[in-house]
């Protein structure tokens, strides 16, 4: 038996890269079950690399990590195939592959579970709509439904709120709360400083770990400046460190993340 307070996700001195030099190093943190952590950092800071290591897709160059069970993953929607002819229900049903039996069509209860997951993310009426025809926020919610069907204890979400409409963001936030209350562990990457304040823990990354802890302790001016460098403007007159980060995105959404 594991002790109840054992970390659901733990990393010790983790480093990772692609072939040559490590793009991320000195990462050590632990997140207990039922807690949420925001992985904060600029684009190219190593957030996705960390997730690829935790998913087992990328072998760490150094250090160790442990994830309780197989984590579910919610990709950035632009990393999915929009021209692939499948519906929102088909996407949610992909989570059922975690139950094995991949060679058989989904069972009736798996279909019911996928519909229920779509209802939870507010896509009950869109089950039969092609994924590529959904809005950005709806696509993100369909991917979240797939993670719900997978029923994993650890969820890794890559920028789930980037470029999402406010209604979708609120729905996604509600699901996060439900998952946390149910003992789930969430790792959510973001480049938005203000969104990080709503999490139990914040992990600041910019090619290495700069800070890890509760947002009130971590989100100070020095850490944010170390994390974002010249991409950040600190608003001097505000109480706790408040910041505006300037991101260099190709797409229109999330061009400026305002504090």
């Amino acid at each position, binding site marked *: 038996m594991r002790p109840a307070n054992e970390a659901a996700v733990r990393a010790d001195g983790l480093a990772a890269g*692609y*072939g040559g030099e490590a793009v991320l190093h000195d990462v050590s943190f632990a997140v207990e079950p039922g807690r949420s952590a925001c992985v904060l950092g600029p684009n190219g800071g190593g957030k996705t690399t960390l997730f*690829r290591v935790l*998913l*087992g*897709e990328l072998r760490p160059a150094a250090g160790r990590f442990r994830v309780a069970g*197989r*984590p*579910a*993953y*919610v*990709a950035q929607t632009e*990393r*999915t*195939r929009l*021209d*692939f*002819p*499948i519906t929102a229900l*088909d*996407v949610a049903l*992909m*989570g059922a*592959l*975690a139950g*094995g039996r*991949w*060679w058989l*069509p*989904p069972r009736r209860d798996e279909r019911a579970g996928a519909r229920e997951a779509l209802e939870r993310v507010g896509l009950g*009426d*869109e089950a039969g*709509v*092609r*994924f590529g*025809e*959904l*809005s*950005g*926020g*709806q696509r993100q919610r369909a*991917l979240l439904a*797939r993670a719900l069907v*997978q029923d*994993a204890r650890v969820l*890794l979400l890559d920028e789930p709120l980037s*470029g*999402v*409409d406010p209604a*979708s963001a609120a729905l996604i936030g509600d699901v996060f709360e439900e998952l946390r209350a149910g003992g789930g562990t969430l790792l959510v990457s973001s480049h938005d400083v203000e969104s990080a304040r709503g999490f139990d823990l914040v992990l600041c990354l910019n090619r290495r770990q700069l800070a890890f802890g509760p947002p009130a302790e971590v989100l100070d001016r020095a850490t944010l400046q170390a994390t974002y460098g010249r991409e950040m403007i600190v608003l001097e007159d505000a109480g706790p460190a408040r910041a505006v980060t300037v991101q260099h995105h190709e797409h229109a*959404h999330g061009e400026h993340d305002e504090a």
Partner: protein
Amino acid sequence: MTVEPLDFLVDPLRSGIDRRALLELALVGAFCGALGFWVVTERLAYAAESLSHGLLPGLVIAALAGASLLLGAVGGALVAAALLALAARDERIGPDTGTAVAVTGLVGLGALLALEPEAPQRLDELLFGDPLGVSDGDLLAAAALLVAGGGALAALHRPLCAVAFDPTGAAAAGVRPTLVRIALLVLLAAAIAVAARGLGALLVLAVLVAPPVAVGRGARTPAGAMFAGGAVAVLAGVVGIEVSFHAGTAAGASVALALCLAAALGAALPIRIRAAADGARRASPGRRGTA
């Protein structure tokens, strides 16, 4: 003298040779047309072309050893598939370059062996094919390909969809994308090896790539796209044999041209249909969100 339209169409069936060619093309076309959806979706058209060249050493070794050429083709294609899958995995040089290096090595090896004094004379038959010359063994192999390959595609359907849609998310759900892609390459190798006996390496590519292009984005589901692709390939096979029978043209080339014509029609037609559909969608506010 008048020619009944039905007689005109049925005439090739009265010839045993053409009947066998039609059966071979129907069996091979039904499977390859369906498999083609995944070949195009996973951007494996280049790999398919490489495989058809890469099985050369297997063919030549079988011919030199006096073994079954079909067996040689299958063995050569499987070895080539494994090598290409390994070469394409190297992220530093990219899949195209890795494939190019691997296939050049295989062709070089095949050429080296083919230049032996006792080199097989039937080699050009295998490279260019002749659907009118298929044997009972070829027909049996094509039937086995359709049954076993079709079963494999059905069993792999969910992992194939998950990997094509989002490989990282599929891996998180327990699917092994590398294994799924290797399975797809093995099916591709089997299809090329079997089809190459009757159709030749060049025509094989047409029967794999032209049907999904003809179907385009017209299908609502992956399964629908696969069935439509299989149907297009069978139909093009029939049209090709009819043309070959009545016009006296080379059967393999006629089928290839019929396939490419179907692809050209499919690629050209949906432009208008898609534009009309987009227009209709814009006209009604519908369910599209704002984000």
